[in-house]
């Protein structure tokens, strides 16, 4: 495993899609241009202090990254700090009077880029992922805001009327969040094979509460710096720190939840009811098919839970089915297992939709109206496919299994699901697993 790592890394670099490369190139060019420009212009010592203070805040924020549901990563404090620097109007000198903040857009980008890079270094040292894509996406969003807002600071009305400034800032912050969401959705659509529209909605659903907090904090920082100066920067992020703490706990319990269901779904394997790795393979396959069919993230999570636990009803069986292949036992028994499993899941009281998916996993796609939910059809197809193919990645075997399933699409399996399944199966690389 470890010996293969360099080769794997190389191949993942090669496999890097054009979208991500484009993003990194854009961010890289912005950074180089910004630093080159900033190095050539003269900046007063007071402005240097401001720049350094914001750089430190951004670096700290990048250090305190936050894992969000769905394997996302955010750096709320870094984003708020960079956005605030882009939106700065005045800076109170300590000691001294209030002076207009003379910051060019390129200087904002330079400070943000340097701060982010420094903040990412400890992650690199600790062997965690550097998260270059996320950093690039944040930098591009900040650049968009900076390029629009910095020239506006020359307008007299904006500098003197706080409500006008606040309105413009709000609009720009929303715009910046949208840019970030679009980039994130593009990358995820590329990575996971999701549809862009669905990915964008998912991205916005996950991000908007945090984005609201980040936006408000950016304005807090920008305005408070006018009165209190930059020494209090750490103080200005206090409300955001509370938010981040709360989100950390939320994201933590969500991932523990998923891990627990994944682990406990394996009890059927340890008990000898099911072939080893079956539940995991079915869930991976089912989620990929669901994504191919354009399902949203909450639906995919339900689907994953249902697929992981689809065989849990076998625990109530007296004797394990040979090999656990439910496709080989009578329809009546299959239905009984599904019902038992659904009852177990329904007992939790919070997973009713998952229980419904498990209950309907054996119903034929046609023959009844309105028929089983899409998730159940997907699990049925993925389960049958895995029962026939198992852990093997042999293409011929996969093709043969798909042929057999296709023959049954008139009644048993959903034709659209089988087509999506063959798409997913064709994409699977034989070297994996």
């Amino acid at each position, binding site marked *: 495993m470890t010996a293969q790592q360099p080769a794997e890394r190389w191949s993942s670099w090669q496999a890097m899609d054009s979208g991500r490369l484009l993003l990194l190139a854009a961010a890289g060019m912005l950074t180089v241009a910004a630093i080159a420009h900033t190095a050539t212009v003269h900046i007063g010592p007071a402005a240097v202090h401001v720049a350094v203070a914001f750089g430190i805040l951004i670096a700290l924020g990048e250090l305190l990254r936050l894992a969000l549901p769905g394997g996302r990563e955010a750096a709320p404090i870094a984003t708020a700090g960079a956005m605030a620097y882009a939106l700065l109007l005045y800076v109170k000198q300590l000691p001294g009077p209030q002076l207009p903040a003379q910051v060019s857009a390129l200087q904002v980008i330079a400070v943000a880029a340097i701060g982010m890079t420094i903040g990412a270094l400890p992650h690199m040292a600790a062997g965690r992922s550097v998260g270059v894509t996320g950093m690039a996406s944040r930098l591009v969003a900040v650049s968009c805001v900076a390029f629009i807002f910095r020239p506006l600071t020359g307008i007299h009305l904006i500098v003197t009327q706080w409500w006008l400034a606040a309105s413009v800032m709000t609009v720009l912050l929303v715009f910046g969040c949208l840019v970030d969401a679009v980039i994130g959705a593009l990358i995820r659509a590329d990575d996971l094979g999701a549809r862009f529209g669905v990915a964008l909605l998912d991205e916005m659903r996950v991000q908007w509460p945090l984005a609201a907090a980040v936006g408000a904090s950016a304005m*807090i920082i920008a305005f408070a710096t006018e009165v209190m100066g930059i020494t209090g920067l750490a103080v200005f992020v206090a409300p955001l720190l509370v938010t981040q703490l709360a989100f950390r706990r939320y994201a933590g319990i969500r991932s523990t939840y998923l891990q*627990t269901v994944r682990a406990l779904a394996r009890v059927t394997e340890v008990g000898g009811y099911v072939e080893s790795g079956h539940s995991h393979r079915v869930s991976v396959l089912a989620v990929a098919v669901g994504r191919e069919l354009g399902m949203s993230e909450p639906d995919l999570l339900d689907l994953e839970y249902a697929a992981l636990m689809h065989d849990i009803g076998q625990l109530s069986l007296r004797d394990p089915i040979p090999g656990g292949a439910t496709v080989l036992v009578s329809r009546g028994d299959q239905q009984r297992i599904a019902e038992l499993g659904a009852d177990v899941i329904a007992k939790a009281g*919070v997973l009713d939709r998952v229980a419904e998916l498990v209950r309907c996993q054996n119903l034929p796609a046609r023959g009844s109206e309105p028929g089983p939910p899409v998730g159940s059809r997907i699990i049925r197809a993925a389960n049958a496919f895995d029962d026939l193919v198992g852990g093997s990645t042999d293409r011929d075997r996969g093709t043969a299994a798909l042929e057999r399933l296709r023959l049954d699409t008139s009644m048993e399996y959903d034709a659209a699901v089988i087509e999506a399944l063959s798409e997913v199966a064709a994409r699977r690389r034989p070297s994996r697993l």
Partner: protein
Amino acid sequence: MGKVSRAAWLYIAAVVVAAVALIASAQFGAQGARWWVELGVLQLLFLICDSTPTPLASRQSAWSPSSSATLAAVVLLGPAGAAMVGAISVFSLRRPLIVAERLFNGAMYAVSGYAAGRMFVALNGGVGRPLPHVFPVIIWPFAAAAAVHVITNHGLLWGALRLTRKDSGLRDRSRLESSLTLLLASDLGYAVLGLLIAALWTVVGAFAAVLVLVPLFVARWAMGQFAEQQRAYAATMEALCQAVETKDFYTRGHSERVSRGSGMIAREIGMRPDRADAISYAGMLHDVGKLGVPTKVLQKTGALTEEEYAAIQLHPMRGLEIVREIGFLDEALTGIMHHHERIDGKGYPMGLAADEIPEFARVIAVADAFDSMTSNRSYRQARGIDEAVKELRKGSGSQFDPTLVEAFIAALEREGWKLPEPAAAPLDHQTVTAQDHDDPTAPLRVVESL
């Protein structure tokens, strides 16, 4: 607050009278012509914060930054304004408080707001919107005012609790002490937020309140999601564990009761809340590995062969194998792995002794054995609680950790124990345990090899 003593009534009345007198004697005008707008917005901010606390680290500690509205009023409006902002907590929407509690809360916040304001003025903190030139000097009078606010507030509250709650024994006090750091940290947070609101007011007026509320509301939303997920998580785990138990008729509900028992011990010995949560989960999952033991071994009535005994001894490791990938505290994993170790070193799987056994495992072992003894088995009826306690004491020091046994018995006396439903006779097709590996009074019999 069931029965309130006379002294308590007098105390409450005194605080209320003081608050009314302070507010009545106050003078307004120095704060500018539109002081009432500021007062109204700050009172609204206080009410919103007070009515929607953000639960933070654990169930007991919630963050409701209403005090920061009072502290902002200290700067913006001075002592009288701060008192009036605090007094608004009479109308708090938080919970159905009785009138006396409402009055006391309002008076308490009013008095502490006034005291803080006096301190601020005494140290030459200028009342009104803080202009840029007052920074950073203003921080010192403000810090002193915040300190006075904290001391007055907690002092008055402590007095009230002292007079109304007579039975607050040792446990409450130790809990209070453990959350003291948390309390101080949150007070510091309130103070910081108060100054921030006052400073922002200079630039954006009442919009400052909106800006500060947004991140706090998002935090509250996230904590709500967290609590919901946590409930869902516990329920799901319980359902799955029940599914595992359906394999065996007699051990139904065992996991859940061991989880409860472990939690009782954990609280009794004053474990941190997050560790207590983790041990409850570990107790729930401690026997998951039994699924890996062939059913015919679990059902066997006679003495076990060495191989069969070895298969049973393997179940903690099997359990560990299943739950290893869950992002628990590592301690929960060690608890599951070692829950059949004995203090005298004769347990399995590793034969650890005394302090070598992780604390979680020692806790689970006690709850595990107790529930096994107080449940019906195919070969005997359930023992009564007293008898089971006697058995625990007998094994104390050899099989169980004596301090934990005593802690469990103490917790039993206070909280009681919900015995399992007396199991009806199993149906024909249900599998039953012939020998319970958890039962300390009937050790597994192994065929002596010659």
